[in-house]
């Protein structure tokens, strides 16, 4: 007992260790967000007018719906592309699994700006995609592929892909080899084994990846700003426009608050769901 007391740091000492960073967080992270919420709620007396105005406005409704739709599609596309990558990583020998892991992690730690810029290079009028389409004879004039919703979805899915692959890979790796092997030896086809064993067991990873990509895409700023056009404006770009161009802090703050609430609610639901999932497994 005395030993374990000595091993763990005392309460006051632990608090002292945390204090410097805690002060920075309260001052630079918590306080500014509270202040921003205050701007959306006080003008100067307490009011919900800003929320009424933003939620009743056709233009912002369109932006909210588009942001949700685009983020859902981004998550779906990332899942479609990411699952096979995670699956390949799982079924590869250690060396190749490591190489694939590096291919997934390097983009994650490369500037989002650089990756979005790369998409403008790929999709522009005299870019690589148009060059390939023309040389294959699919089109005979360059298409305008940039500044629309589809371009935003593809580029954002690319930016978010590592967040999809990693959790799926984690849950695939946790599946004991015996399970699919038993299925195969009992005469099930590869497809049946995948459908009835692998896919259900990888559900936690799929859910975690999907939610992560969806939630982060809701607030994505860089890629939609560079790849999207006015007709595909998303929430983050709208917030930035309200504040830096229209100087309408009340509206920008209200939109920010709504985004923050959406993210928080989604994460809360998800953490409940994951706990239930864990209980189920026990």
């Amino acid at each position, binding site marked *: 007992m005395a030993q374990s007391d*000595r091993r*763990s*740091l005392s*309460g006051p*000492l*632990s*608090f002292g*260790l*945390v204090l410097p*960073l*805690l002060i*920075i967080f309260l001052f*630079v*992270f*918590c306080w*500014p*967000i509270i*202040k*921003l919420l205050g*701007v959306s709620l006080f003008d100067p007396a307490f009011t919900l007018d800003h929320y009424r105005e933003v939620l009743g406005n056709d233009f912002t409704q369109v932006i909210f719906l588009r942001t949700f739709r685009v983020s859902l599609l981004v998550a779906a596309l990332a899942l479609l*592309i*990411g699952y096979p*990558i995670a*699956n*390949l*990583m799982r*079924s590869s020998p250690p060396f190749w699994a490591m190489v*694939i892991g590096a*291919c*997934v992690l*390097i*983009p994650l730690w*490369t*500037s*989002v*700006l*650089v990756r979005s*810029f*790369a998409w403008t*290079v*790929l999709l522009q009028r005299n*870019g*690589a995609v148009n060059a390939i389409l023309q040389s294959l004879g699919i089109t005979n004039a360059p298409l305008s592929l940039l500044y629309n919703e589809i371009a935003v979805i593809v580029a954002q899915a*690319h930016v978010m892909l590592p967040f999809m692959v990693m959790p799926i890979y984690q849950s695939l790796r946790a599946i004991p080899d015996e399970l699919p092997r038993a299925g195969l030896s009992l005469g099930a086809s*590869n*497809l049946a084994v995948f459908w009835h064993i692998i896919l259900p067991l990888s559900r936690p990873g799929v859910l975690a990846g999907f939610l992560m990509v969806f939630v982060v895409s809701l607030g994505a*700023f*860089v890629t939609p700003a*560079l790849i999207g056009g006015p007709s595909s404006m998303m*929430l*983050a770009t709208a*917030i*930035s426009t309200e*504040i830096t161009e229209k100087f309408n*802090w009340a509206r920008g*703050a209200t939109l*920010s608050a709504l*985004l*923050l609430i959406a993210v928080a609610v989604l*994460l809360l639901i998800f953490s409940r769901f994951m706990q239930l999932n864990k209980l189920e497994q026990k």
Partner: protein
Amino acid sequence: MSRFSLKRLSVSSLVARTAGILGIVFLLIPTVIVVPISLGPDRYLRFPPRGFTLEWYNKLLGDQAWLQPMLFSAKIAVMVALIAMVLGTMVALAVTRGRLPAKKAVTMVMLAPIIAPGIVVGVAMYLMFSQMGMSGSITAFVLAHTVLAVPYVIITVSAALATSDADLELAAMSLGASRFNAFRYVTLPLIMPGLIAGGVFAFIVSFDEPVVSFFLSSVHDKTLPRKIFEDLEFNVSPVVAAVSTILTFGSIGLLGLVAVLRRGLSRGGSAA
């Protein structure tokens, strides 16, 4: 046994494999495409490039409009990495080894910047710092980026602490070392690879951070991501491709360093 190898070559597994490989191609192409563009001679970005030149790199390294933001970002990122390494390690120690009151709440707040929407954090910080007249100051950038980068240090150092043996520190203390010296000479060397990895992540997060920088930058004091952003919005030139190439290879180099350190750590761990 032969049955399994037969199954492995089935059509469905071939399709799955091909889909995985195509996925990796999709992942990598936008990461490498900037390299040939940065070496092509065309004034307007063009693919495939016609010819080879280092003109854009020369332009980049001879232009104050690019060098200043680069230096500014590097200065901020180094300070952020150092501060985050010190403060992040202190928090990781308290969380993994200490009886910290309200542990859950503290960790939740300190990891929140990873998942909080960058745009909201950026706008909120802009609101506060501009009211204080600190917008564009190096202090504001360092404080803001420390908040965004420190979660990565907390995570890597906590992981390193969880795998290093707390009894070693206890042994040193029972032999008469003070708590600080036991940490300094026993635990710190053990967690060093994790700590340096965290520092590298913190450096990259700060150096590449685009959203908060977008709002905090002023006309004179801007970070490299903000400068890239401006160039992409107004006059896309191959110089951006040159910067992108440097950034990409910089990240790859730093990640390679982390991988080597991690490998050293696991080897040391297995030897112990």
